[in-house]
């Protein structure tokens, strides 16, 4: 393996991190929205949210990315592989994070919410200032775990032509007829990414321990 090989595998990490990050940034708020929908027990949309989450959570990443990339043109929308990959990650993240948000919301101390009601707080303020900051803190470990799993499912985007770490490593191996060393380099890159995520979790948890007063 020469320097260019190392570089091309490293370049794969741009795709891995970029697509996963977009997926998280879009998917997490979406998942929260779904969770709130189900928590507030709004009819019809609650059942649809449940079905959506149930189907996506059991769907392999490979199948989902091919459904979105190849299926979208049939619905009249043409997607680039990059956009299709990002949408897939966002959809996956929304479904998984919905469950995590939901369990945090369900274990949320109802009394605090009632106190906010008693003080006449409007609905939005109740959710934004009382419920969410605490739900965020208790969801954090689960969300980081989900992000890790999202990164581990990211090799699926290779089937629609995105060159991420695993595909890049496999291509180098195909060229040099020595497949294992580039795979090892790929492994190191994944370890770095996952390690960084775990550190981030530690940092976020620590900063969460000294919350600013709400007012």
């Amino acid at each position, binding site marked *: 393996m020469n320097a260019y090989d190392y570089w091309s595998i490293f370049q794969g990490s741009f795709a891995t991190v970029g697509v996963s990050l977009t997926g998280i940034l879009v998917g997490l708020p979406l998942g929260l929205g779904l969770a709130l929908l189900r928590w507030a027990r709004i009819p019809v949309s609650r059942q649809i949210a449940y079905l959506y989450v149930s189907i996506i959570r*059991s769907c392999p990443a490979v199948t989902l990315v091919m459904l979105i990339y190849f*299926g979208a043109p049939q619905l009249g929308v043409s997607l680039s592989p990059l956009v299709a990959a990002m949408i897939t990650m966002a959809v996956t993240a929304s479904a998984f994070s919905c469950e995590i948000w939901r369990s945090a919301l369900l274990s949320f101390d109802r009394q605090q919410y009632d106190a906010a009601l008693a003080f006449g707080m409007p609905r939005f303020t109740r959710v934004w200032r009382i419920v969410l900051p605490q739900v965020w803190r208790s969801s954090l470990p689960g969300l980081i775990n989900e992000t890790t799993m999202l990164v581990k499912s990211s090799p699926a985007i290779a089937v629609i032509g995105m060159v991420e770490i695993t595909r890049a490593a496999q291509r180098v191996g195909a060229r040099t007829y020595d497949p294992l060393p580039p795979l090892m380099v790929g492994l190191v890159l994944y370890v770095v990414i996952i390690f960084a995520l775990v550190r981030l979790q530690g940092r976020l948890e620590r900063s969460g321990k000294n919350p600013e007063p709400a007012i």
Partner: protein
Amino acid sequence: MSLDNFILVWQQYPEILEAFGNTLMLIGIAGSVSMLLGIFLTPLLMSRRKAVSLSVTVYCESMRCMPFLLFVYMIYFGLPSAGIQLSNWTTGVVALILYNAAYMAIFLKGAWKDIPTETIEAGRAYGFHGLKLFRRVIMPLMLMRATPMIGNQWVQIVKDSAFLGIIAVTELTAAMNAIQATYFIPFASFLSAVLLYWLISLVIEFFTTLFTRYAEVRRT
């Protein structure tokens, strides 16, 4: 995006059935064997002999750090270098088993640690030790505690099985891809696949709920 497309997809039912059956077999074998391997690995993880517990921990943690497809490539390319020639299908099964057994062992170990110390101590006080203690006291309690996580891991195996199409194993997603490429009906094909995967996971969920209910009355 009409119903005709779906009908066209399902007219290919011989291929779909074969691929679906194959996927079910992959999941069934990988799920059961990885569970057994996980049960076997857990006492090794808890072993007081440092060499044993350390090496098994390294194995489990490295599986946790890497994507399944990367591991598949390692087995797929690595075994021939070591002189072992396996079919793609066998390679896929081996990868599924080794990868998921590590995850099983990790949360089974957590479930073991959750068992109240007194319960295990009573086993010792009443003359149970070694394999007998594990088989009669620890293992049942560990498995019942971990039932939801085991169910979850089975669903993970279902999803990982789709990656095996990349190394040319006949499974559901690859078969649907072949159909959609032939007839230009991607949406109907892949949506059918998604629904079939959903069906499998609903069945897994059903059994998990069953086992959880069995376990509920048998908890501390």
